[in-house]
C-alpha cells in the first residue's frame, strides 16, 4: 500500500519535472516574442553582435524608455531584414551588394545609408626568437590551413609551426577563416585558445608558435608580424592608422546600414555610436575605433 503511494508521489514529481523542463522551452520563445514589440530592431553580423549589444545597453542606460533589440544571424540576414522592413538597422561586416541596394530601393523606396562604425583588425604574433618578420596573406592562410608546417618553408629556422587560434565561438576565429583562409577549414591540430591572453602566453614560451590577437594586445614579449597583401606589396605593421587607411590587409570595416536617413531613435543611436563614448566601447570590445 505504502509502496504504491510512494510510486504515486514519484510519478507526480516526474510529471512536475517534465513540466518544468518544457517550461524552459516556452519561456525562451516568449522572450523573443517580446523583443519584436520594442522600438528598434538591429539585425545582422555575428561579429558585431556583442559590440552592438554593448552599444545598445549603454544607449538604453542613457535614454530610458528606448528599447533596442540586437540579434545576429549574419550580415546577409541583417540586410535581408532591412529590405523586408523587419529591422531598422543592419549590422554588416561586408559591403552591401548592388543587387541588395536595388531591392531596398524597390521594396522600401529609400536609398541605403551606410556608416562605417568600427574596424575589425587582428595582429599576428610570433615568438621573439623567430627571425621571420613578415608574411603574405597567402602564407598566413597556408599556415592556418596546414599546407605549410615548418618555419623553414617560410625562410625561418627548422622548427615545427605551432598554430594558435581562437575558439570557434569567437568572431576572430571566423574572421580569419573568412578573410585570410578563404573559408577553408583550420588545420585540425590548431590549438584553439579561449582568450588573446592565453595565445600571448603560449607564443611567449614556444619558439615555433604563431597566433593572432586583438589590436593592442601585443607586448615586447612577442614579435608582431608585418603582413603583405601579396608577394609584391609592401609589408604593413598593424596600427590604428594603417587599419583606418586600409593599408593593413587583415582588417575590414564594420558597417551599419539604414534605409534612408535615420530618424528618431535610430538617429540618436547612430550619433551615440559615432560619439567618443561609443567609440570607446569599440576599443573595449577589441575592435578599432574609426574616430
Amino acid at each position, binding site marked *: 500500500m*505504502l509502496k504504491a503511494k510512494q510510486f504515486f508521489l514519484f510519478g507526480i514529481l516526474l510529471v512536475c519535472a517534465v513540466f518544468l523542463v518544457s517550461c524552459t522551452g516556452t519561456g525562451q520563445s516568449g522572450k523573443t516574442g517580446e523583443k519584436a514589440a520594442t522600438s528598434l530592431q538591429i539585425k545582422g553580423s555575428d561579429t558585431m553582435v*556583442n559590440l552592438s549589444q554593448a552599444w545598445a545597453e549603454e544607449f538604453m542606460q542613457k535614454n530610458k524608455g528606448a528599447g533596442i533589440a540586437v540579434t545576429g544571424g549574419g550580415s546577409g540576414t541583417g540586410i535581408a531584414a532591412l529590405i523586408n522592413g523587419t529591422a531598422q538597422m543592419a549590422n554588416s561586416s561586408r559591403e552591401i551588394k548592388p543587387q541588395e541596394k536595388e531591392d531596398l530601393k524597390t521594396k522600401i523606396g529609400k536609398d541605403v545609408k551606410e556608416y562605417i562604425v568600427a574596424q575589425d583588425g587582428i595582429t599576428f604574433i610570433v615568438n621573439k626568437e623567430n627571425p621571420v618578420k613578415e608574411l603574405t596573406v597567402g602564407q598566413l592562410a597556408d599556415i592556418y590551413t596546414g599546407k605549410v608546417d615548418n618555419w623553414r618553408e617560410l625562410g625561418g629556422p627548422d622548427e615545427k609551426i605551432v598554430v594558435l587560434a581562437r575558439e570557434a565561438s569567437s568572431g576572430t576565429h571566423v574572421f580569419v577563416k573568412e578573410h585570410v583562409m578563404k573559408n577553408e577549414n583550420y588545420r585540425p*591540430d590548431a590549438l*584553439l585558445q*579561449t582568450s588573446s591572453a592565453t595565445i600571448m602566453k603560449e607564443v611567449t614560451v614556444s619558439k615555433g608558435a604563431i597566433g593572432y590577437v586583438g589590436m593592442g594586445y601585443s607586448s615586447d614579449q612577442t614579435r608582431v608580424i608585418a603582413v603583405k597583401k601579396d608577394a609584391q606589396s609592401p609589408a604593413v605593421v598593424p596600427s590604428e592608422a594603417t587599419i583606418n587607411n586600409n593599408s593593413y590587409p587583415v582588417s575590414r570595416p564594420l558597417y551599419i546600414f539604414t534605409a534612408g536617413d535615420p530618424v528618431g531613435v535610430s538617429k540618436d543611436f547612430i550619433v551615440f555610436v559615432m560619439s567618443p563614448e561609443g567609440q570607446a566601447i569599440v576599443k573595449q570590445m577589441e575592435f578599432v575605433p574609426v574616430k
Partner: protein
Amino acid sequence: MKLSGGNPLAGTEMDLSPAKRSAGQNPRWRQPRALLEKVVETGLFLAALTGVVTIILIFLFLFKEAVPLLLAPGPTASLTAKNWYPVSTPPVFGLWPLIAGSLLVTFGAIAISVPLGVGAAVYLAMVAKPTVREFVKPAIEILAGVPSVVLGFFGIAVLAPLIQDIFGLPTGLTALTGAVTLAFMAIPTITSISEDAIAAVPGKYLEAALSLGATKWQSIVTVVVPAALSGVSAAIMLGIGRAIGETMTVLMVTGNAGVIPDSFLVPVRTMTATIAAEMGEVARGSLHYHALFVVGAVLFIMTFMINLIADLISRRLKKGA
C-alpha cells in the same frame, strides 16, 4: 521503504478502525506525536527524493536539447566524422576527437594518481607514525581545496614549459600536461577515502597475518588492502569521476586541438573543455548549440557508466568478503 513498512502507522491506511481503537486506548499525546512523525517521515522522504528528481531533470533537459541535432537531416552523419568544425559550412560535429581526448587525459590521470594515491593511503594508514600522519593527511586534503583554475595556472606556467623542455616538444600544452594536473586533483580524493577504508580494517586481520609469520609488507598487500578493496575502489572511481568531469584545468592546459591523439605528447581537446569554450557565445537553438548538448549527453552517459561500474564492483567485493 523498509523503515516505513515496519512503521505501526502503516495500519492507519490499511484499516481505520483498529487505529482508532488504539488511539482511544492510549493517552491523548500519542496522536499529535504520530502526526509529527508522519510529517518528519514525509519531509525526509522528499529530501531523499530531491537528488533523484534533480538527476531526472538534468537527464530530461540534456536529452531534450540534444535530440534536435540527432533528428536534423544532414549533420547527423557528421557526429561520427573525424573533425570538430562547428562553424564551417556545413558544420561538422565529429565527436571522436573529443571523446578520445577526454579518455586519454582521464586515463593518464588515473595511471598517475591511482598508484600515488593508494600508495600514500597505505603509507598513512599502515606505516606512518601518528605524528607524521597527523601532519601529512591534512596537507593532502588541503590539496583537494585548491581551485581548479589555480591548478590550471600552475599547469600553464610551470608544468607546460617543463614538459616542453623535457620531451623537446613544439608546445607544452599536451594531454600529458592535462593528465598530470588532473592527477593532482584526483590524488587527495583517492588518498583520503582509501586511507579511511584501510584504517577501518579491523586490527586483528593484521595481527592474525603477522602471527602466521607473514612480514608486514606481505600482511599489508595480501590481507589488509584486499579487505579494504571495496572502499579503495570506490575512492578510485570518485577520483576518476573528478578527473573526467574537470573542465577549467583541461581547458587551460591541454591545448584544445580537435585531433584524435596518437600519443600523450600532443595537444588534445576534451568534451568538457569544448562545452565550456563554445557554450558562451553559441546562438541558442542553432545546430551548434544542440551539438554541444549531444556532447554533454555523451559525457553524462560516460560518467553514469563509471558510477554504475563502481557500484557493481563494490557490491561484488562486498559479497565476496
